[in-house]
């Protein structure tokens, strides 16, 4: 309020002053203009930039997952249910001192017994090593089958005692477990490492069949993007022309289509997608179709609404009275008006499609079971929810992140492109 006492001359000059950045707007190129716009749009500008950067990264990951994923998403690369960062522990084979065994192969036949503590990861190591032996012999064309019988024990002492008595031929345990115990049994010795301790574990752990969660999560991006983008594009290809035509022609066709589209729109989308996907059966194309159907009414409604309002505006009237053809009016007057809202809806729609696709695979519909897909991984992870949080957290985080980027872009674009705002 101290300002009031200022002389009118001073005021008069501030009233007509235009901030320099606003004048700059007219002189600079598109890129600079985007930066300058930051001052005008504030938080929404940052929303757009953050989501654009995220999306760029996500799209690169989706196109080239092999650059980022350390392992093949379908391969079993480690012990199962390994927590993130935890290195798979080493396992050693214990034998009787007098048995003369120098190699695991020697006691890996059908009539051999191998012991370990019940329910411990040693069983995993056992299975792995037998599998490796068989693969090896198959590759060498030997045809011999290794199939030692597993013997499960309540405790390590029990097992070592059984080994000493000759009931079993070998015992599998980790060096940590054996320390301080093995010395009490005179007749046994440690033969050597079955599996060495890895120096590093898996960043996001492994799942129940020993696949790398990180690699699967990265490869899942590809499926999500393919389904999300293609179903949105298919929906546009049907929804936009239908909306244009319906609004432009009007009459019975318009009323009928609108009624159908409104009913479709009011029906719970996921349930519709579930029923279509269930009837069509598994396959990525089917999923795309099932999801695309949900969004056709969205485009139809928005395009039809826009066309109706544009149609009533004067310049279309004028163009028509000047004898412009219907198609000219459509392309030159109506299309440009409709495009901004289609862009906004598109990005929101991709977000929603990705969510729907994840939901479908979570429910066991749509994709073949081995696909590296977030929804499938989450559905499997549900069975291990008490033990392995990482099976939920990482794919869940990734779905949310991708959806977030698309919807943030749509939301802030719609705030920025809001006609009332841009009028200023």
């Amino acid at each position, binding site marked *: *309020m101290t*300002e*009031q006492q*200022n002389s*009118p*001359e001073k*005021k*008069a*000059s*501030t*009233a*007509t*002053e*235009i*901030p320099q950045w*606003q004048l700059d*707007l007219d002189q600079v190129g598109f890129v600079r203009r985007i930066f300058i716009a930051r001052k*005008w749009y504030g938080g929404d500008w940052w929303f757009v930039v953050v989501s654009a950067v995220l999306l760029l990264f996500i799209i690169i990951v989706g196109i080239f997952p092999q650059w980022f994923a350390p392992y093949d998403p379908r391969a079993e690369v480690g012990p199962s249910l390994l927590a993130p960062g935890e290195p798979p522990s080493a396992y050693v084979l214990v034998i009787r001192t007098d048995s003369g065994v120098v190699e695991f192969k020697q006691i890996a036949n059908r009539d051999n017994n191998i012991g370990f503590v019940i329910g411990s990861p040693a069983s995993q190591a056992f299975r792995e090593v037998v599998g490796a032996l068989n693969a090896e012999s198959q590759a060498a064309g030997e045809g011999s089958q290794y199939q030692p019988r597993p013997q499960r024990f309540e405790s390590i002492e029990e097992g070592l005692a059984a080994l000493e008595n000759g009931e079993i031929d070998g015992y599998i345990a980790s060096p940590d477990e054996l320390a301080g115990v093995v010395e009490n049994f005179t007749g046994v010795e440690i033969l050597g490492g079955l599996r060495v301790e890895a120096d590093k574990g898996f960043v996001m752990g492994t799942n129940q069949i020993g696949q790398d969660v990180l690699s699967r999560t990265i490869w899942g991006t590809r499926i999500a993007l393919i389904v999300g983008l293609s179903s949105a594009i298919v929906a546009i290809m049907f929804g936009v022309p239908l909306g244009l035509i319906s609004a432009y022609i009007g009459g019975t066709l318009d009323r009928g289509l609108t009624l159908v589209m409104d009913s479709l729109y009011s029906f719970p989308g996921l349930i519709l997608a579930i029923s279509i996907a269930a009837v069509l059966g598994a396959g990525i194309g089917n999923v795309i179709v099932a999801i695309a159907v949900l969004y056709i009414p969205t485009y139809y409604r928005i395009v039809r609404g826009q066309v109706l309002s544009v149609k009533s505006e004067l310049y279309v009237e004028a163009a028509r009275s000047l004898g412009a053809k219907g198609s000219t009016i459509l392309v030159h007057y109506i299309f440009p008006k409709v495009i901004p809202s289609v862009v906004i809806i598109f990005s929101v729609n991709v977000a929603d499609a990705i969510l729907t696709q994840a939901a479908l695979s979570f429910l066991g519909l749509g994709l073949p079971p081995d696909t590296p897909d977030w929804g499938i991984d989450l559905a499997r992870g549900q069975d291990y929810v008490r033990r392995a949080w990482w099976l939920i957290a990482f794919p869940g985080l990734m779905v949310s992140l991708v959806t977030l980027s698309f919807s943030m872009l749509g939301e802030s674009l719609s705030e920025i492109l809001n006609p009332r705002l841009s009028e*200023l």
Partner: protein
Amino acid sequence: MANEKDVLVQIRNLYVTYGTRLGSVSAVDDVSFDIYRGEILGLVGESGCGKSTLGKALMRMIKSPGEITGGQVIFNGEDIMEYSDKQMRDFRGRRTSMIFQDPMTSLNPVQRVDEHMIEAIEVHEPKTKKANITDRITSLIERLGIQKRRLTDYPHQLSGGMRQRVMVGLGLVLNAHLIIADEATTSLDVIVEANLVDQLREIRDEFGVTILMITHNIALVAEIADRIAVMYAGRFAEIGPINDVFEDPMHPYTQGLLRSVPSIRLDDQEELYKMPGEPPNLTQPPSGCRFHPRCPQAIPICARIQPELLETKQGRLVNCWLFQDQPEEAAHPIMVTA
């Protein structure tokens, strides 16, 4: 009444600016004038010249991106620019009230007529008894020619004229001294409009309120107002008693404006005057007198230096170099705007 010279509001060097993407719009630019107690002051001007902005500024109701960038509004001797938010809320409604152009939308559609009035009284006079409130509302509304039973109606059940009278009632129910009517009658049809105008004059006579009547309709001002103020591009061109201004318009803009009004007395042969040029873009207003590019009587100084609103005759103020001493050019170099 107007000659009593009892000043209710003094506006001094008021500036209002809107910051837009295309630059700042100086919608009210160095406006000073007085409103006398009990008068009806008509404010006229082309669309976009800042009439509504001025009206809102008198109640400090300018919303972002707009801002009152300077000046004083002295109401009953107190500068309302110094008021706190709380004082301002008390001021609005109790001292000044406003009636807007569109009666369809200026009442809350889900609130009954009496609820509007009760709310206003409860906010400003929380101690009033329920029974007193009802009495006050009933007598007021009947005085305005609306039946009592209409009080429990919702706005959409009333006609446009009735709604506008309800808005007037909302202004009177708290005994406001000043009523600002911004195009209050524009959207009504002619007969309803005439009735409302008559009623406004009666109300002035009866309640002694002061009315600032913002309108496009010069004929209406001629009929009801005591004085007329003519605004052009954010500034006052001329202000004076209604008869004097109509008989002898001094500012070239006022002359043009009055000549472009269709009148019933006009001969069919006589062409309506059409003012040359367009109203200026207020982001970059013309230098000097803002009217000079369109002015048929412009002289060199008009393009360079802004004149002032000065009293030329008894009660008449004009903002034009034709009626004031022209200074040496060198004396005011700062005034030239870019």
